[in-house]
C-alpha cells in the first residue's frame, strides 16, 4: 500500500512553484488549498473571476460580507492593494494573457495536454463556469489531482474520453504520486514519491511516462495538512 500524498500535500507541492509577485487563479475546490501554502517571503496576488484581485483568506464565521465572495461562492477577505472590476474586465485579464498561473482540478488529463474537468457526460446538468477561459488565458496552466480515480482508474490518459475543457492547454500536473510535465505532447516525469517504483507509477498511468534527465524524489513535509 503506497502512502500517497493528501490533497493538502499536493497543494503544498504546487505552491512551491509559485514565484513571488505573480498573478494566480485557483480553480474551485481542491485547487483553492494551494493558497494556504505560499512559501515564506513570496507574495502572489490571487485573482477570482467574479471580479476581485488581491483577496485573502476566509473571514471568521459571522463576519462574512455576502457581496465579497470568490468563484466558489465562499466568503473571502481583501488584502492591501486589492481591486474590484466587472466580469468583462476580469476575463480580459484571463483571456488576454495577464495571469501568470492557473491551477485547476481535473477529471482527466491527456498526454497531448488536453484537459477534461467540466462534465462527466450527458447525464449531468452541464455547468462550465470559467474553466474553458482559464485554460486558454494563463501563461502556465497546472493541474492538481489524485493520480487515479476513486475506482482506481487512471486520470492521466492517452486521450481524454470525457468532454474536453480545452485542447493542448496543460503544462504541468501535480498528482498524489508524481509531478509530470507535458512537453511535445508527452508526459515527462519530473518527480515521484520515493516509495513508488517507476513500473508501479507507469501501471497506474494510461500513457507512457517519458524520462528526460533526473527524476527527483517528491518529498513533502509531514506536517502539511
Amino acid at each position, binding site marked *: 500500500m503506497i502512502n500517497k500524498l493528501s490533497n493538502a500535500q499536493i497543494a503544498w507541492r504546487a505552491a512551491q512553484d509559485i514565484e513571488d509577485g505573480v498573478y494566480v487563479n485557483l480553480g474551485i475546490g481542491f485547487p483553492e488549498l494551494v493558497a494556504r501554502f505560499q512559501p515564506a517571503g513570496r507574495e502572489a496576488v490571487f485573482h*477570482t473571476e467574479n471580479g476581485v484581485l488581491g483577496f485573502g483568506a476566509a473571514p471568521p464565521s459571522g463576519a462574512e460580507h455576502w457581496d465579497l465572495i470568490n468563484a466558489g461562492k465562499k466568503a473571502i477577505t481583501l488584502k492591501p492593494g486589492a481591486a474590484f472590476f*466587472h*466580469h468583462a474586465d476580469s476575463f480580459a485579464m484571463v483571456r488576454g494573457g495577464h495571469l501568470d498561473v492557473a491551477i485547476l482540478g481535473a477529471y482527466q488529463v491527456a498526454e497531448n495536454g488536453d484537459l477534461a474537468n467540466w462534465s462527466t457526460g450527458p447525464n449531468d446538468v*452541464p455547468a*462550465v463556469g470559467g474553466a474553458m477561459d482559464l485554460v486558454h488565458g494563463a501563461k502556465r496552466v497546472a493541474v492538481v489531482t489524485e493520480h487515479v480515480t476513486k475506482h482506481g482508474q487512471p486520470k492521466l490518459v492517452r486521450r481524454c474520453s470525457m468532454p474536453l475543457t480545452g485542447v493542448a492547454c496543460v503544462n504541468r500536473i501535480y498528482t498524489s504520486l508524481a509531478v509530470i510535465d507535458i512537453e511535445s505532447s508527452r508526459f515527462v516525469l519530473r518527480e515521484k514519491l520515493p516509495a513508488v517504483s517507476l513500473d508501479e507509477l507507469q501501471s497506474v498511468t494510461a500513457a507512457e511516462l517519458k524520462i528526460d534527465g533526473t527524476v527527483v524524489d517528491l518529498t513533502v513535509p509531514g506536517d502539511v495538512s
Partner: protein
Amino acid sequence: MDKTKFNLAEAVVDIPDGATVMIGGFGGAGAPIELIHSLLERFRATGHPKHLTLVNNNAGNGHVGLGALIECGTVKRLICSFPRSVDSRAFSQKYRAKEIELELVPQGTFAERIRAGGAGIPAFYTPTALGTDLARNKPVAEFDGRMYLQERWLKADFALIKAEVGDEHGNLTYRMAGRNFNPLMAMAAQCTVAQVRRIVPAGRIDPETVVTPGIFVTRVVEVSDPQQEEQLNRAGAIF
C-alpha cells in the same frame, strides 16, 4: 432628468411575455432579489410575463430570487455559464423534465457577449471553448496562426441589476464583488432597471468613481436594506 421616480412594482410592470431579461449577480452577490421578487409577484397576480428568456450566470439557489423565479414556471429558456449551486433543484428538475431550455456559455464568453451587445459589436473571436462540445456549429477562423471561435453579441429587452448608490441621472456605483455582470448588463438592455441601496441627488457621486454612467440606466429604485440570497437560504426562506 429624474430616473428615480419608480417603485418596485412600477419598475417591472412593462416587461412583456417572451421578453429576454438579463439579471445581474454572481450567485447571490449583486443579485437584485427585490426586483426579481417584484417580477415574480406580478407573474403570480397576473400570469404575466411568461415565456421569458433569462440571462444570468447561474440558475438560482434555493427557493428565493432567481431560484423562485425559475420554480414558478415563467422561464422558457436560460442562458448561463453555471447552472449548479448548493440547491439548484428548481432548475435541474425543470431541465430534466425538459420544461426549460438551456444555453450553456463559458463564463468569459458569456461576459464578453453581453459587453459586445452593449458596445455594438455583433460578433467577436475568442480561443475559449475551441475544440470542445460547446464549440459545436460555431464558425472558426485563423488569426496569426491560431484558431478561434466566432461568438455573437447578447442583448436583452430588460436588465434587472443591483447597485449600491444611484443618482437622478442613473449613475451607479457597486459594492465589492457585487459588481460582476451588473455594469455589463446595464449596457446591453433596451431598458435597464437598477435597485440601489441609496438614491442621491445628481452631483453627489464623484464623476471619477461612477462605474455605470447614467446613459445606460433607465430606472432607479431605492431598496435601502436589500436581502441577500445566501442569508435567505441559510434561514430556509421560501418566496
